[in-house]
Every structure is written in structure tokens, then in C-alpha cells.
């Protein structure tokens, strides 16, 4: 019998709610095979569930816990994440309290040696980075899911085992009322870094595990500084190591510091050690305000991914699929892109529109993305926490030079999570005019948002479908309208959005067309996850159909 911890977690600013276990039909003697079961109600499992529901796919979500994340964990959400979270309906709620920001500072011996501002485009609705504690993000996702009749949340239910068959999977679940077996056609493993499902299947991640350990401590304190990233290198109180400071809503600051080698997590989290170190950092930056600890934890930097996210009917996503160093705010921000990539492909397959080949591109596209992120994140990790003597010497030389030599300062660049570019995806059109464009998002890239009017942006108008952005000042050719209708009649969700004189978006000053390097008759075909898969200087109906079939995995 599994008894989840029912005591609300302690926090000085967040009130934990308990989501009680409820007796499932299986424990009342009814069984059925569900189309999709998601294990994990973390941010990634929940976004996957909400995304699938957008395509009318019902999902059961299983979580061992009965409350949201212990501690703030992921606190920085990128613009791309906000665009994804807008589609599942929680972006506005997040923005009500999140702190938007865009500047990062690197400080060495009291001098700011590097400052970088992430670019902000006036066509973007969302700021490059937005700080909000993970508990709130999970809470908003849960409340959104509770409103959706297609989503069933099963709390306090621990997965003990899984059996994989060629056409379905079976879960062994333990609950406060005993064990049961749950059967599903597709199983999504979003059960986090310690994934039970990954372990039961004996799957191994590939990549590097860094030796350095870090403490994360959230404190309540009044510091009247703007929301920016602060990285302190090699301070006197923690020689050779790096300290990060991030501002969060509710008067919370995160301090993140590396531990001396050979110190155990228990030693590091002992109150005396914590207090001394936090106070030393505050003293160094000249903050005298009183403070109170909210939550602390120890983690180590890892840069690893499963080499394949699909195993028969079991699909891995989020931290269960990969573990990424958090320096570039990569954990949750990468997982959201997994969720969004997976949901439409699985939905199309379940509707009989997409092919199994389409679904395998979830794994190929996202494993490639993870590998790219790992390569990039490893560069940051080598600078923030040098893994050996050589890297330490080079890092220290750069620190020392940075006080007077501008050429080394770009090495402080804090590479943050970016949207992945699926430029070599098998879903991209084989014949289009991609190379002829001099502006606009290329094949594989996410759409560029466009500000249409006050508080009105292109992304506000996108739904759970393919979209054809068609630029014209005349009427849309009948052949194109017919092609779209024919596709719709076969059940393919595809929407036409016209841009130009007397069209859906009027584009009076030609700004939209200019950013997309479009003339009358030009078009972009956009996947349901908002990535471009084809673009034409002049669209023909046949090319549109061919590109749609390619994007559904029906290509040669």
C-alpha cells in the first residue's frame, strides 16, 4: 500500500494545496484500455496533457504526489515557453505576477566585467525571460487541466512497474487503497529525472555528469534591485566557485553556489553552513537586510539524454528523457518544447491522419535538440564550474584578463535556452522556395510573432492546427481554397490566415509582409507546433498538398 505524504510542504510564501487521491474505476472493478496515459504531473506531463486535449484526445495523468513541486525549482521561463504556455491557456495568469527581464551581469572582484541584454523585438508579445516559481506554473496548469473534461488527474498513485507490449503498455500502480493495473495504447513517461519507467526498462542516458555540486537556496529578503541575472565569479568567501543570484516574485531571491569538492549534501545543507555562506554572499554585495530561508536543495550538473525517446508504445519526455544543466535555464524550457512537439504528432496518429513515421520524428527531432543543447550547455558548465585543472586555469586566466581586456568578455556569454530549429527535419517540404527568402522564419524555425495592433499579436490567433499564412492583396485563388477544403474534409486540421489588403490581417504598412519577405501569392506552411515546414514565393495548390502530406509523415 502506497501512502503519499499528505502534509502540505512548508514555505514562507506559497500555500500548498492537497489534491486528494480518488478511487479510480479500476479499483471498483471496471477496466478499460485508455488511448493515452501520462505518468507525471510535473510541468511537462501537465503541458503534454493540455496540449493533447487541444486536439480532443482524452488523457489520464498519474502522479505519485498529492501536491505541487517542493520548492521553486524552475524559475526562469523563456519567451518560447511563454508562447507554448499561451496555447495551453496559462500565459496571461503567469504574467500577472511573473517578473520579466532580459539583462545578465557577470561580476568579478567587485567589477561588472560583462553585461548582456537578450534582444527584445517589438513584434514579440513576451519578454525574453520571465521569473516565476515552478509551484505557480504547476498550480495554474493543474487548474487549467481540472477545467478540461478530457483530462483526468489521478493523484497519490505511484507507478511501481510497467510492461511494454507491441500495441499497448500496462502499468502497475500502488495507491492508498491498494494496487491496480492500468492499460493504455500509448504511455507517456513524464516522471522526471529519476523516472521509474526509464529504470524499469533499463534504459541508459548518454552524456556527461559533472562532478561539481551546487546548493540552491531561496530566501525571503528585501533587496531593491531590478530583475537581472547576477553571476559572481571567484568571490573571496568561496574561492574558485561561482554564485548566481536571481530575483523571484513574493520577495524571494535565489542564491545558487558551488560547493567545495568532497563536501557532502548533508554537510552543505546543515543550517550553520547555509547561514554562514548566504550571509557571506550578502555581506559581499553589501546587503544588510534581514532574511529567512524558504527552501534549499543540492544538485549536480548533468548533461545527458536518452538516445531514443520511443520504445514500442512508451514515449519519454521532459526530465525523464534528458537531464540538462540548469545554468541556461534549460530543464523546464526544453521540456515544454518536447511536449508541444509530441502532442500534435501523437494526436494526428490517433486520428488516423499522421503515420507512425510522423511520430518517430518526435524522437529524432527532440533527441537532436537535446544533443545540441547538451553541447551548448557543456560550454557554459565548463566556464561556470570548470571540471578539471585545464579548464580551471583557462577560466581563471579569462577572469583575470576580463578586468582590462575586452576581447575575453564574450566568453562570459550565458547561453540561455533557445527554441530549436528543425532545419533538417524529415517533415520539411522537399520542394519549396525556402532558400530564396531573405527574411522571415526559415524551414524548421518557429514563427516570428507579429504585433498586429495594441495587445493583438499573430500568436493569439493560432490554434491546434496547421496554418497557411497566405499573403495577398487580391482574392485567394480558388485552387488554393479548394485544396485547403479538400484537406479539411479528410480530417486534417488546417486553417488559412490571409494577410494583406481586405484580408484577415490587413497589414496596412506592409510590416508583416516585409518581415516575412513575402509578395502577393507568397505563403508559409506552419506545423501545429508553430514551426515552419515550407514556404513559397508563390504558392500552388499542388505544392501545398505535397507539403502537408510530407509534414504528416506520408512523404516518400
Amino acid at each position, binding site marked *: 500500500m502506497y501512502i503519499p505524504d499528505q502534509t502540505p510542504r512548508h514555505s514562507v510564501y506559497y500555500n500548498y494545496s492537497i489534491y486528494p487521491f480518488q478511487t479510480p474505476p479500476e479499483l471498483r472493478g471496471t477496466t478499460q484500455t485508455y488511448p493515452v496515459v501520462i505518468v507525471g504531473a510535473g510541468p511537462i506531463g501537465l503541458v503534454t496533457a493540455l496540449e493533447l486535449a487541444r486536439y480532443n484526445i482524452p488523457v489520464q495523468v498519474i502522479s505519485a504526489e498529492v501536491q505541487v513541486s517542493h520548492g521553486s525549482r524552475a524559475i526562469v521561463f523563456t519567451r518560447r515557453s511563454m508562447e507554448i504556455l499561451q496555447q495551453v491557456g496559462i500565459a496571461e495568469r503567469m504574467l500577472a505576477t511573473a517578473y520579466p527581464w532580459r539583462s545578465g551581469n557577470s561580476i568579478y572582484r567587485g567589477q561588472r566585467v560583462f553585461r548582456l541584454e537578450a534582444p527584445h523585438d517589438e513584434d514579440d508579445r513576451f519578454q525574453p525571460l520571465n521569473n516565476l516559481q515552478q509551484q505557480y506554473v504547476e498550480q495554474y496548469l493543474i487548474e487549467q487541466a481540472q477545467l478540461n473534461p478530457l483530462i483526468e488527474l489521478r493523484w497519490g498513485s505511484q507507478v511501481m512497474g510497467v510492461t511494454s507490449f507491441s500495441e499497448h503498455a500496462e502499468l502497475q500502480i500502488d495507491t492508498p487503497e491498494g494496487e491496480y493495473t492500468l492499460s493504455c495504447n500509448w504511455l507517456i513517461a513524464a516522471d522526471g529525472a529519476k523516472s521509474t519507467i526509464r529504470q524499469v526498462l533499463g534504459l541508459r542516458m548518454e552524456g556527461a555528469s559533472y562532478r561539481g555540486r551546487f546548493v540552491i537556496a531561496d530566501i525571503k529578503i528585501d533587496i531593491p534591485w531590478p530583475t537581472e541575472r547576477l553571476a559572481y565569479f571567484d568571490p573571496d568567501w568561496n574561492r574558485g566557485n561561482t554564485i548566481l543570484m536571481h530575483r523571484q516574485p513574493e520577495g524571494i531571491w535565489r542564491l545558487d553556489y558551488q560547493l567545495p569538492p568532497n563536501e557532502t549534501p548533508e554537510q552543505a545543507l546543515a543550517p550553520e553552513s547555509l547561514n554562514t555562506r548566504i550571509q557571506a554572499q550578502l555581506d559581499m554585495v553589501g546587503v544588510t537586510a534581514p532574511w529567512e530561508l524558504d527552501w534549499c536543495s543540492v544538485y549536480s550538473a548533468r548533461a545527458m539524454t536518452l538516445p531514443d525517446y520511443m520504445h514500442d508504445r512508451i514515449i519519454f519526455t521532459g526530465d525523464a528523457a534528458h537531464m540538462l544543466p540548469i545554468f541556461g535555464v534549460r530543464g523546464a524550457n526544453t521540456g515544454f518544447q518536447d511536449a508541444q512537439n509530441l502532442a500534435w504528432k501523437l494526436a494526428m496518429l490517433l486520428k488516423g491522419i499522421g503515420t507512425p513515421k510522423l511520430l518517430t520524428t518526435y524522437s529524432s527531432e527532440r533527441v537532436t535538440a537535446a544533443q545540441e543543447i547538451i553541447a551548448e550547455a557543456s560550454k557554459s558548465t565548463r566556464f561556470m564550474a570548470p571540471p578539471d585543472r585545464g579548464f580551471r*586555469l*583557462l577560466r*581563471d*586566466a*579569462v577572469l*583575470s*584578463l576580463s578586468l582590462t581586456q575586452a576581447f575575453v568578455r564574450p566568453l562570459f556569454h550565458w547561453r540561455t535556452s533557445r527554441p530549436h530549429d528543425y532545419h533538417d527535419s524529415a517533415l520539411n517540404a522537399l520542394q519549396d522556395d525556402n532558400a530564396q527568402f531573405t527574411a522571415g522564419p526559415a524551414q524548421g524555425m518557429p514563427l516570428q510573432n507579429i504585433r498586429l495592433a495594441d495587445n493583438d499579436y499573430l500568436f493569439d490567433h493560432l490554434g491546434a492546427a496547421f496554418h497557411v499564412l497566405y499573403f495577398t492583396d487580391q482574392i485567394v485563388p480558388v485552387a488554393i481554397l479548394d485544396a485547403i477544403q479538400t484537406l479539411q474534409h479528410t480530417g486534417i486540421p488546417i486553417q488559412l490566415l490571409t494577410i494583406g489588403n481586405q484580408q484577415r490581417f490587413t497589414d496596412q504598412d506592409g510590416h508583416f509582409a516585409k518581415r516575412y519577405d513575402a509578395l502577393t501569392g507568397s505563403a508559409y506552411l506552419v506545423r501545429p507546433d508553430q514551426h515552419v515546414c515550407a514556404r513559397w514565393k508563390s504558392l500552388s495548390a499542388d505544392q501545398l498538398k505535397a507539403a502537408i502530406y510530407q509534414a504528416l509523415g506520408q512523404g516518400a
Partner: protein
Amino acid sequence: MSQLGLAELEAVYDALAAAINQVGTEQESLFLTKLVLLLANQLGDQTQIEQAITTALRDL
């Protein structure tokens, strides 16, 4: 690529030896690493620097 004449090479030889003595063993590696980065930036040629690294690794 320009080369140093004997007199210049001897001057650099002396200056480098004096600097190494001045920084002491603890900071010697840091000093030399800084020096290489500065010179590499002035040289501005990745291939030549990598070749020099290979050459310096030889016959240790």
C-alpha cells in the same frame, strides 16, 4: 610570419624568465595561460595557435 632577431629573442627570453620568477610557482601557470591568451588574440590566427600548441607539446 615575422621572426625575432637574436637580440630581440634574448630580450624576450630575459623578460619572460624575470616575470616567471616574479609571479612565483603558485601563479606561474595562471600567468602563462594569460600570456598565451593575450598573444593568441594578437596573432589572430586559430590554425597557427593550434600548431604552436602541438609544437610545444612535443619533446617534453
